[in-house]
């Protein structure tokens, strides 16, 4: 558990969008997928997942429809809308720029200042 990073508030939405962009998922599936693609480093708190999903649906970035899961159970599946795809791209770009900036700041050596 020591390798797990804290999920910053606000990044959950980004992760959900990314997870769903790889294919429609139901709630539990999104949880697993995030764990999977972060190679176990990010665990989503179950309490935060569904409110975030509903919020994204309300904002028009995800759309939901009822379907049947692998275990033959009825579940709600979420997939990206066009707006969601757009938002994912924007957030990804923003996040990458931020990461690069922080990264270069952290690499500063005493001689450079």
């Amino acid at each position: 558990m020591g390798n797990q990073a804290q999920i910053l508030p606000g990044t959950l939405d980004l992760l959900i969008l990314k997870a769903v962009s790889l294919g429609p998922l139901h709630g539990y599936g999104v949880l697993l997928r995030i764990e999977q693609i972060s190679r176990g480093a990010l665990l989503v708190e179950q309490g935060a997942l569904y409110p975030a999903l509903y919020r994204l649906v309300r904002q028009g970035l995800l759309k939901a429809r009822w379907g049947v899961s692998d275990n033959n159970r009825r579940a709600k599946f979420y997939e990206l809308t066009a707006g969601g795809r757009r938002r994912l791209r924007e957030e990804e770009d923003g996040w990458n720029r931020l990461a690069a900036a922080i990264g270069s700041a952290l690499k500063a050596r005493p001689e450079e200042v």
Partner: protein
Amino acid sequence: MEEELRAHIEERAADLERTGVSKAEAERRARIEFGGYQRFKEECREVSGTHFFEALLQDLHFGLRMLRKSPGFTAAAILTLALGIGTNTAIFSYVDAWLIKPLPYPQAEKLMVFLSHDKKKGWTNNSVTSTADFLDFQHLNTSFEQTAAWAGWNFNLTGDGPPAFVEGGRVSWNYFETLGAKPILGRTFTAEEDKPGGGHVAVLGQGLWQSRFASDPRIVGRTIKIDDETYTVIGVMPGTFQFPLMGIANLWTPMALNDKETADRNSSWFSAFGRLKPGITQTKAAAESEAIFARLEKEYPQTNTNATSQVSSMIEEIGKNEGTTQVMICFWIVALILLIACANVANLMLVRATRRVKEFAVRRALGATKGRLTRQVLCESLLLFFFGGVAGTLFGAWGMKWIHSAIPDHVRGYLVNYGEVNLDFTTLGFTLGIALLCGLVFGLAPAFEGSRADLNTPLKESSGQASESGRGARLRRILVGAEIALAVVVLICTTLLVRSFLISVRSSPGFNPANVMVAQLQLPKTRYRQEKTMRNFTEQALERIRALPQVVSAGAASSVPFGGFGQVVLIAAVGKPAPKPEERRGARFTAASTDYFSAMQIGLVKGREFTSEDGPGNSPSAIINQTLARQMWPNEDPIGQKIQYGEQHNIATIVGIVTDIKMSQLRARPERQMYVSLTQFPSPSLGFVARTAGHSTEMESAIRDEIWAVDRDQPVSAVEPLDTLIMVTDARNRVLTKLMVFFGVIATFLGAIGIYGVIAHQVQQRTHEIGIRVALGASPVQVVRMVLGQGMKLAGIGVGVGIAAALGAARSLASLLYGVTPNDPATFTGVALLFGLVAAAAGYLPARRAMRVDPVVALRHE
């Protein structure tokens, strides 16, 4: 959502099972991991849409609590709104009943009334041009399915009870058919019965059938005595049947025009209407009518020059009787009053909002959105206006009851539905509608005020010093200024109308109506065929009435002023060139007994009254009024001249001149009036006037008894004071005036409250400043001037704008004014001064409070 979350848990449990955990254990762990999901069910719901209604309910609940916490504000606001909205409710119900709802006939909009119109002189009246003209029109027109005629008529019923005077009408055979009204018993007339000698048949009204004939189930076929002749009842009309142009009617007989009447191309005694054929419009019918009458003009130049007939919608004509103009004026005035009331309430709400700025700032800082706050304040406003609407409905219902009771029974016959107006759904809907609309419009400003962007300043400020922010205060000043302007407009309009009424009532009618009792009756032809018998009756009755101890003087006439009917004859001066047909003049014609003028206290200007000299066999005498004298004999003494009048071209010698009197309206124009001696020309319709020493109720029965002593079968109409007759005729104006007084008072009162609010608030704001000034040596007078200054300036601007607006608005009242012009300077200056005084008075209390400010306390006041 439940399902989704459960599915999640089950998936997790299945996963755990696959790693070897037992099913029960897996489920337990899955559920623990997920946590109590109740708490984020809440969050989920918050994020999804169903939240809206719950939030709304919450807002309403909160709003109610806030209103309850400030009972003073709530009570004041609701009362103000009750006044504003209630008046609108009451007036709208009349607008709805009289102007919007249709007449109770099928396809009533197709019913058209024929008005006669003189193209040269420009006058119009509601009877047909002449009998022969109407009959020709009936044959020649192609626009109307049916045309029918009617005339109000009074009947004497005898037998089956005490002799009674019944109001009703003589109508053409298809009168009921054309309207589309059906009897509840029997049938209505046939064409055969509408001929002279076509059998005496009558239709009763349900009221008469119940009261006089005890709802006899075999009334159809029963014979009754009308005017001493036997008639057979052939049908009964329902109590709901009404014909507002005629007034109250309970008995109808066929017109049965005789040959002489059908050939009469000079005059007529009835009015007419028709039902348009499907597809024909009013304009088309009017054009055809003009064309037909143009033809008649050519064919009969002696009688028909310049005569034509206009086609008007019956709904419009009834509206004129009801007073459409008056109702609409009330409507606009109460709309203004509503605006004034709303402005007042908006001000109250704004002041309250500024006090709560700190509360809102705290809530905003804690995370409430601007939208949410705005919505909540708006909810509060809507709640307030809703309650105001409810209170207004109650107030309005009470107002309607008052108006209803103020209209005399007699007048009700001319109102649709007998003046009954109910609080129905349309009116309730209207009330609710305007309450909520005003709530939205006037509630927005305080709502925005409360959720302003700036958070820091309110939080930093100390509690009492609610900021006199530029925007908020200016809005309040604009509201009060507008309010005052509106109040001035309302007050000016109502004052003009009230003054018109007072002037008309105080203006002398030309006679002295105080302590005069009037008894009206009609001698039936059957028992009073000869002039001698009519004369004997009149003289005997007069003798007996004069003998009564309380009677000072008495007289009789063929029609009395304000008695409800009169006669007009064409006149010409003998010895002067004969006037052309279209220039012939008419005059009001009355046959009067000896002592009539002195009993009525009508001034005798020259010559003499009728005396016993003017008896049968002597040369006919006439008395004329000043207007007639002036117009016909402008440069000579009319006494001794001869005047020709009437159909038979009778000639009479003028023996006296009397002052003008008002015969049917208080607001009458001067008209030509002439009198002949009742002894020389006895009349079957009579009005006895008796001037009494004092008024007592026994006079009524005493007079009636004396008449019955002469002829016990003679029905007599209600014996009542002449004052009452005048009041009844003027009832509509009377009710309107009372309403206007009420509206004027409300408007002034609300305006005064507005000014008081502004000045009081000012004082409170500037207490600190006042303290400083007083400490620095300002005198109380200077303090008062400072405090009142802004308020009075505001009032001044408001009054100025109001007067300017009123100059325009009052012009629309012109048709209702009497004795005052729409721009009457006395009224305008009076109202301006009044408002100045009102503003000063309203500012007095707060100013006094300002003067008493203790500088030490004020300086410490935060």
